[in-house]
């Protein structure tokens, strides 16, 4: 009875969460992903899905395995156990029944509550034509600008930004339930021209998509821009994918093969058509795509053609050099997957092939010895998973164009109602290459890595949870700035305390040890030295009342490379005000940070306007504040405003090169309007 009451109260409390308030575990995962990749992603697909589910909660009685995976709040074992439960017992009678699902504890249910519901009508798919009416439209327009003028905007010779300072993004989207959607995205980065100079057609980037599911035998149809996700990411994975985090059990890549793409990021998607067919237990998918990518090149006079040396993922086309690289690499890709799926297991075969207009040849460096080269490339893999009682096993075995091998296998076990265990082994040979791989690895790409990861999540008491993982890995070949094979290790321990429904505190300690070239080396060959990082964070979320949430974080970092030692410190306090049934809400943050240099930087997730997140890296000495306000002008029109400023008192300029700003302050304003109809 107490648990039922807890769930009921949680519904009323957590549905009041502000529009862009992510569960703390997701914030952490995004932070650690940005930290690992050292760059923010513009892919806001996940945020769009979460926002959609908040407004249109997912019906658990008709949700497919794929729908549950897309939430990214459930482990593969929990998804599998839920599907088994529903197949055995029948449809859920009410949301309170979730406690009876094996592997679903009260904390899992609380995380899901804002996004789920239980409805007792069956899911039906309307004809395609009928779905074109009755859905929801929205138009979004966003303008972002740094108020201080950077050097790139002041010059008119040499390297300079040819366009204006605002960053503009517009999106139109139509969505009919979760069965059909289409839309257009247009994006212009700061510094890119707009209806002038090199961008006579307006925006620098356009994207359009049409996506439908449940068309009889056609499980999924994707036209325009879409992402493709195979297996565990060893050969091809383009959707948002998390790396290691305090969610130590969620280590398996989970997604449908085809997903719509409606973000402003200019690299991680396909452009063409894709289709998935379902016939009984067999699902088969094929896709075809052609894209012109931005890439650096050199001219090979012997061959009389351009040789591609690197592919740009930032999407910037601001300067003459960046514009010269635009659309230099025509990439034709096609592939498919066949998957046989039963209740508790599946097996699949995946293949993808690429053809490049210009051959690819990376810079002639020792670490690029096995890099992808040539005018064609291909990857093939087998993937599998099965669930037996409290255990879920998954994996993928892949080969590339030159038959180099990669394997990834993992296991999740729920050894007790309060203890879950995860294990993952990867063996990726030093020669193995993929164009769009994204697996659960230390490296950004699945290349040149062997490792063993183990994680354990324990609910020690009803209010205390312990998550920890250990990852030991080796790199059999050289890497960028690491001129020899090397090893590394990483550990994380996190205690999470939830003494009441209004309070959550977690303390996280993370340590990472890798090797790197010695700085200021004067020998012919580089000597490798140890690089150690330690981070300790204390984070508190306190709900004062149903409208106000206070958050406070203190984070310390230590960095050591050889004899060089650095420290970092960050503290912030922020308040989020989001009253139910009121037209206005917002958040405010005050922050101080101090680190010795970029090496001891600290990342911190920030609330932002709807469908946008910000995870800047903080280094140096400074203060930062931001204010977010959202206001419902009318029932279908909402405006969002974010004003942020970072002050570096000891600096006379911020940034470098064309992004350099004179002065010690950097102020950014972001304005967004969303119309729904």
């Amino acid at each position, binding site marked *: 009875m107490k648990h039922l009451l807890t769930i009921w109260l949680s519904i009323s409390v957590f549905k009041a969460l502000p529009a862009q308030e992510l569960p703390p575990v997701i914030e952490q995962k995004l932070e650690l992903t940005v930290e690992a990749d050292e760059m923010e992603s513009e892919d806001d697909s996940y945020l769009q899905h979460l926002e959609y589910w908040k407004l249109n909660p997912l019906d658990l009685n008709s949700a497919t395995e794929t729908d549950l995976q897309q939430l990214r709040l459930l482990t593969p074992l929990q998804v599998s156990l839920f599907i088994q439960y529903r197949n055995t017992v029948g449809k859920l009678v009410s949301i309170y029944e979730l406690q009876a699902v094996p592997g679903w504890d009260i904390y899992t249910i609380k995380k899901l509550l804002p996004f789920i519901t239980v409805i007792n009508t069956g899911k039906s798919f309307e004809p395609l034509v009928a779905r074109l009416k009755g859905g929801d439209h929205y138009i979004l327009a966003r303008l972002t600008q740094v108020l201080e003028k950077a050097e790139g905007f002041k010059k008119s010779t040499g390297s300079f930004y040819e366009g204006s300072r605002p960053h503009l993004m517009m999106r139109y989207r139509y969505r009919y339930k979760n069965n059909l959607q289409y839309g257009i995205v247009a994006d212009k980065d700061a510094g890119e021209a707009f209806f002038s100079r090199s961008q006579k057609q307006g925006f620098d980037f356009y994207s359009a998509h049409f996506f439908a599911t449940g068309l009889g035998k056609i499980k999924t149809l994707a036209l325009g821009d879409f992402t493709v996700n195979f297996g565990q990411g060893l050969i091809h994975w383009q959707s948002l994918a998390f790396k290691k985090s305090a969610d130590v059990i969620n280590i398996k890549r989970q997604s449908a093969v085809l997903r719509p793409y409606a973000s402003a990021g200019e690299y991680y998607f396909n452009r063409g058509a894709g289709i998935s067919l379902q016939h009984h237990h067999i699902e088969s998918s094929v896709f075809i795509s052609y894209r012109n990518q931005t890439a650096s090149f050199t001219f090979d006079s012997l061959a009389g053609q351009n040789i591609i040396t690197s592919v740009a993922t930032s999407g910037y086309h601001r300067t003459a050099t960046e514009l010269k690289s635009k659309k230099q690499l025509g990439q034709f890709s096609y592939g498919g997957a066949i998957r046989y799926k039963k209740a508790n297991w599946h097996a699949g075969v995946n293949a993808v092939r690429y053809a490049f207009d210009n051959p690819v040849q990376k810079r002639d460096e020792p670490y690029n010895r096995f890099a992808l080269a040539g005018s064609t490339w291909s990857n093939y893999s087998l993937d599998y998973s099965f669930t037996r009682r409290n255990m879920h096993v998954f994996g993928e075995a892949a080969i590339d164009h030159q038959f180099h091998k990669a394997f990834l296998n993992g296991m999740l076990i729920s050894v007790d109602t309060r203890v879950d265990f995860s294990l993952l082994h990867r063996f990726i040979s030093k020669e193995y290459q993929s164009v769009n791989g994204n697996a659960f690895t230390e490296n950004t790409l699945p290349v040149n890595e062997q490792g063993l990861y183990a994680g354990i999540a324990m609910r020690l008491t009803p209010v205390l949870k312990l998550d920890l993982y250990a990852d030991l890995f080796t790199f059999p070949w050289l890497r960028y700035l690491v001129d020899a094979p090397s090893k590394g290790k990483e550990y994380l321990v996190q205690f999470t305390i939830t*003494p*009441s429904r209004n309070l959550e505190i977690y303390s996280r300690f993370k340590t990472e040890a890798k090797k790197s070239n010695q700085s200021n080396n004067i020998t012919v060959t580089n000597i490798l030295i140890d690089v150690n990082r330690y981070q300790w964070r204390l984070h508190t979320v*306190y709900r004062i009342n149903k409208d106000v949430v206070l958050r406070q974080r*203190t984070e310390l970092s230590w960095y050591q490379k050889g004899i060089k030692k650095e420290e970092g*410190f960050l*503290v912030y306090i922020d308040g989020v005000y989001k009253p139910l049934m009121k037209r206005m809400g917002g958040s405010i943050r005050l922050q*101080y940070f101090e680190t010795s240099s970029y090496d001891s930087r600290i990342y911190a997730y920030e609330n932002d306007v709807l469908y946008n997140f910000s995870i800047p890296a903080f280094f140096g000495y400074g203060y930062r504040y931001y204010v977010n306000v959202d206001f419902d002008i009318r029932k279908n029109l909402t405006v969002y405003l974010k004003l942020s400023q970072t002050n570096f008192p000891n600096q006379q300029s911020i940034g470098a090169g064309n992004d350099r700003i004179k002065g010690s302050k950097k102020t950014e304003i972001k304005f967004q309007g969303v119309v729904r109809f």
Partner: protein
Amino acid sequence: MLKKGLIGVFCLWQAVVVAQSFPECPAHSYFSLHNYSKWPPQVIAAGFNPAAFGSLSHHAVFIYSEQRFLLKELSTYQFGTAIKTHSGAFGLQGSMDGQPDYQHFSTTLHYGRQLDEAINIGLGFEYSAYNIKGYGNAGYLNINAGTIIKLTGQLRTGITVKRIPAYQLNKLSNKLKPEFLVALGYDFSDQFYSAIQFEKTYSEANNVHLLFVYRAKENLAFKGGLATGTPVYFGGISFTKSNITFDVTSSYHPYLGLTPALSLHFNISKPGNDLNDVVE
């Protein structure tokens, strides 16, 4: 003699290069971690986070003295008083450090109050002055601010921000360094309390303080802890007789030795008897 000389140079370097107030000795600064217990804080503790004045249950005075590393030249003396009113509490504290060749004085006016049952806020207005023989004087006006949030009946957290902003009265003097303290305190029971505090002063190492308090009896408590920035351990005993509390503590630095400290708190009014003692 050499040790005294080195310490003297150290103090001079601190004062001239960074114009920082004397580095807090953990035997003194451990008082700051008392502010996050369910027990009413002592006045000396409230000086570290002015929000704690909002939880004072009586008027009080205190005096404090320490002799750092057993050197007369590095003595510190503090005194203070707190007056509880209907709308919070006011405190006045003064301190004196050093010796005739190098002296530091400070006076701080505090105010703290409860916003509601869960949140205290406070402000401190501090005047600091340095007098260094041969170098001159330096004066500062600082504003310190703090908050304490009662998360549960046993768990409290607080943030203190010091010297933001800081105003130099003498243009020749260097800027004071801002300081941030974030603390979390937990009352395991009526007998056992523990707290952790993260402390960051600009351009200095990260510092973490840990405190453990065991109340063997109602009027006897044993305390211990450590600080990590410069590894230091401290321990102490607190004894209460009637309205007076004696606190004897000592900290230990591996190279520089012991720092004994003594404090005396005197409650002018009885705890909880506010109606008779509140100043109109």
